[in-house]
């Protein structure tokens, strides 16, 4: 058996295309960069260092886009006193991708303190990226002190409620959700009844073969409830997406890559472009993780997603800035 063979699904007890071994393999690589291809419901994972062996056929698709997250413009403390330069490095990485992405998703915490100059700075830096279109959802740092009014004015034109929205690209339905508003004492991320009702209506008319990409700041799965790394009513949101054969959920917030597959839903979190955070429970609190300067960029990154229409698959590739 060659090395690649080892990474493919060996035991598919539930006939859902996922075995635990394959899932763990994918998880293990998440920190260093991994390519996970969901191919006809079957998850295959390859380490990023072996991308060249996979060949362009695997990674190339009809639609390519990039996810960036947690740029925290304005943060200037140890771990990363210069978050502008690492965001620029992320843009360089995006501009060097072999398949040019058609747009970017920013999954929130654009700014550190919701200051106008912080938002200005991010917009200015992202102007040098080749894809000119950016779709945003807010993080909790983007809605400080004004319930998100400034965020919506700048980044949420035409959105609903506190900033949720949907759009279609190449037959994929994209849904941007907001789970950082009106959080309850002791709770986690929250979507709220109004947004859930909108979501249910938004997908009613779509055929079940439509690939769905959901993006939101806080993970829509329970990564680590003790640190609030999850969304209280995410199960209701996913319930509205049950009929779809392929759902990909892209989140940020936890400043590290992580992946999980549950039935037809694949969850990914992206790295930050600003500073890393500890693994769940690995520190007393989820604050910025201070690392030696030469290790910082190895813990920051961007996520590249390719949709392979003829194979009905989304390939998600995390790569670090270092």
């Amino acid at each position: 058996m060659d090395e690649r063979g080892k990474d493919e699904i060996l035991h598919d007890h539930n006939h859902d295309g996922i075995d635990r071994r394959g899932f763990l393999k994918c998880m293990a690589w998440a920190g260093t960069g991994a390519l996970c291809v969901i191919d006809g419901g079957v998850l295959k994972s390859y380490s990023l260092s072996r991308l060249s062996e996979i060949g362009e056929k695997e990674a190339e698709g009809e639609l390519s886009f990039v996810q960036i997250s947690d740029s925290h413009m304005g943060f200037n403390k140890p771990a990363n006193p210069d978050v502008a330069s690492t965001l620029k490095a992320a843009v360089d990485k995006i501009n060097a991708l072999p398949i040019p992405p058609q747009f970017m998703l920013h999954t929130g915490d654009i700014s550190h303190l919701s200051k106008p100059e912080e938002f200005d700075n991010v917009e200015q830096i992202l102007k040098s990226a080749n894809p000119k279109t950016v779709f945003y959802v807010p993080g909790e740092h983007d809605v400080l002190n004004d319930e998100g009014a400034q965020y919506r004015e700048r980044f949420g034109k035409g959105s609903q409620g506190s900033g949720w929205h949907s759009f279609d690209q190449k037959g994929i339905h994209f849904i941007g959700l907001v789970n950082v508003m009106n959080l309850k004492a002791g709770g986690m991320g929250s979507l709220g009844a109004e947004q859930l009702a909108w979501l249910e209506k938004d997908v009613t008319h779509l055929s079940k073969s439509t690939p769905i990409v959901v993006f939101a700041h806080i993970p829509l799965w329970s990564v680590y409830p003790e640190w609030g790394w999850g969304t209280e009513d995410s199960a209701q949101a996913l319930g509205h997406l049950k009929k779809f054969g392929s759902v990909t959920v892209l989140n940020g917030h936890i400043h590290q890559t992580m992946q999980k597959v549950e039935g037809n839903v694949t969850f990914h979190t992206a790295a930050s472009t600003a500073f890393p955070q500890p693994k769940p429970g690995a520190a007393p609190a989820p604050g910025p993780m201070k690392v030696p300067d030469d290790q910082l960029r190895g813990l920051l990154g961007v996520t590249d997603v390719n949709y392979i229409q003829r194979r009905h698959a989304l390939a998600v590739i995390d790569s670090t800035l270092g």
Partner: protein
Amino acid sequence: MTRRVLYIAAIATMLMAILAGRQTTQAAPPAAPPAGADVKIDNFAFTPATLTVRAGTEVTWTNRDDIPHTVLSDDKSIKSKALDTDEKFSYTFTKPGTYSYFCSLHPKMKGTIVVE
């Protein structure tokens, strides 16, 4: 006449007693406003998590984390803006009661002020 003098003396004594009483009351130290109390925000936690103070106490929260936090009472009546590193927020509790609050950005962070 003697009876009259005695009568006046009695009234004078009573007046003096009343005045003395008033003087005693005035001599007591006036009720000092309670000293301020502090809550530190460290490592995504309010310390102390429960703080008991006298009515009239000004409580000051100081954020010592690298990440902004807020103070928001469960009933939303007490609300700070986002506190960056080393920023403070103060609130004077005038009425006795139990005030539960949390950080609206990281709602797992909870605290209580008990006002006696």
